[in-house]
């Protein structure tokens, strides 16, 4: 019962969803009117799991006054502030003033925090290029040379140095890169197909806890 019911649910739902995209008849409507909106609702509930986990982990930290509990307090405070504010707007979409204020809090706090951490990547790219990209072997050399050519071809300055750089960059992108990507895409799709098949038939039960 504990394993069979979920396996059955997965199997039936997966078959309906799969067939609904390639057959005529009643299944496309079953997908459109039931399964898909259900999925929207269930996955919305799943989002809440994250916050329950966060509340548990950080709530404990605060109540036991463990190291750095103040930060946990900040985290939960921020979560409740944005959570409640956003929920209010979602339920009252016609309150334009609230939406405007939320957008301000979002675009000038969360958004710069988020892009701020991403911008750190630019610095890391620079330092790791210097530190780690060495022409140690034939393979590493191929990687390096194509990377440098692409960088020169992708910036306007490249064409000023040698007029053919953009063309070489386009060739690398369109021919060898495309070929390699295509191989990886096909291979990975076959790999996930076989895994999906195992899930469908209940051979893979990783998602049900315990592997076998």
């Amino acid at each position, binding site marked *: 019962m504990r394993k069979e019911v979920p396996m059955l649910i997965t199997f039936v739902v997966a078959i309906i969803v799969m067939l609904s*995209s390639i057959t005529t008849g009643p299944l*496309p409507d079953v*997908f*459109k009117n039931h*399964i*898909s*909106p259900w*999925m*929207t609702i269930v*996955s*919305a509930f799943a*989002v809440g799991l994250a916050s329950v986990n966060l509340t548990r982990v950080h709530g404990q930290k605060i109540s036991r006054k463990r190291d750095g509990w103040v930060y946990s307090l900040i985290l939960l405070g921020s979560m409740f502030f944005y959570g409640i504010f956003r929920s209010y707007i979602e339920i*009252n*979409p*016609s309150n*334009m003033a609230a*939406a405007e204020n939320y*957008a301000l809090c*979002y*675009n000038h706090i*969360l*958004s*710069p925090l*988020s*892009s701020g*951490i*991403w*911008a750190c990547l*630019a*610095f890391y*790219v*620079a*330092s790791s*290029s*210097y*530190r780690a*990209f*060495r*022409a*140690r072997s034939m393979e590493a050399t191929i990687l*390096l040379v194509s990377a*440098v050519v692409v*960088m*020169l071809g*992708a*910036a*306007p*300055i*490249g*064409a*000023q140095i040698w007029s053919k750089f*953009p063309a070489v960059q*386009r060739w690398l*992108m*369109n021919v060898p*890169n*495309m070929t390699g*990507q*295509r191989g990886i*895409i096909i291979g990975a799709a076959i790999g996930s197909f076989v895994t999906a098949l195992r899930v469908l038939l209940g051979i893979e039960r990783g998602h049900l806890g315990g592997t076998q």
Partner: protein
Amino acid sequence: MNWINKLQTIDRRIIYILLLVVCAIPLVKPLGVPLQVTDMTRDVYDIIEGLEPEKDVVLLSFDYAPGAGLDAHIVPVAVVEHLAQRGIKWVSVSFNPEGPMMADLIIKDLESRGFKYGIDFANLGYLAGQETAIRLFALDCLTITTDTRGNKTTDLPVMQGIKTAKDFAFVHQFTSDDPAMWIRQAVDPMGLRYAVGIVTVSVPSAMPYYNSGQIKGLLGGLKAAAEYETLLGKPGRAVAMMDAQSMAHLLIIGFIFLGNLGYFLGKKQGK
């Protein structure tokens, strides 16, 4: 020799500061290096040039979060500018919870220039469920019953005559992820005319889909936006930034060169 060691061990903080300086100077004082327009960019431009104002409606799917930064956001800004110039209506939808706010940033700007929400464009907001949601929306756009401002979708003038994704003249997605989800769920099964604006990082992995014709046009990040601005004849923010981009590339190549120089000299010495 000591200096070889030094070449190998420049402090990372020095690299950070140099990068910051090299990027900042051309931003303040652009150099004006000329730009070439690539086919992938021209494809999108030509598609939009071929649309009929007043009649055609375009679907824009905003699937990126602010974290993706300017590299993601500058592309839709350029494309929407083109749509606005030509008077073509558009509707936006998102399969990323942060997407609707990104669309709103563009909408706010258009409204301040006198364009009308609901008539010229509308924002249908976020639909949860990723791939499932994409397919659901493609099959039945009215599944979203209200837009982000609480209007009934069926009441929006711009949505008149739209039932499925097929009813849009053209679908353009903007994403920081890969375009495979849209292609799998809507483009291949429904035969949509589809182009994508992606972050520079994702361009190589999208190439096979462009090559096979599943993607009709491909705009990759800042560079493509700069090319698009050039095509529009309105060089703006993106074009100005390309100079900084050039300088930063040169700096990084310089560092790779220094690192390798130190490495080879060190190896020689070791022998």
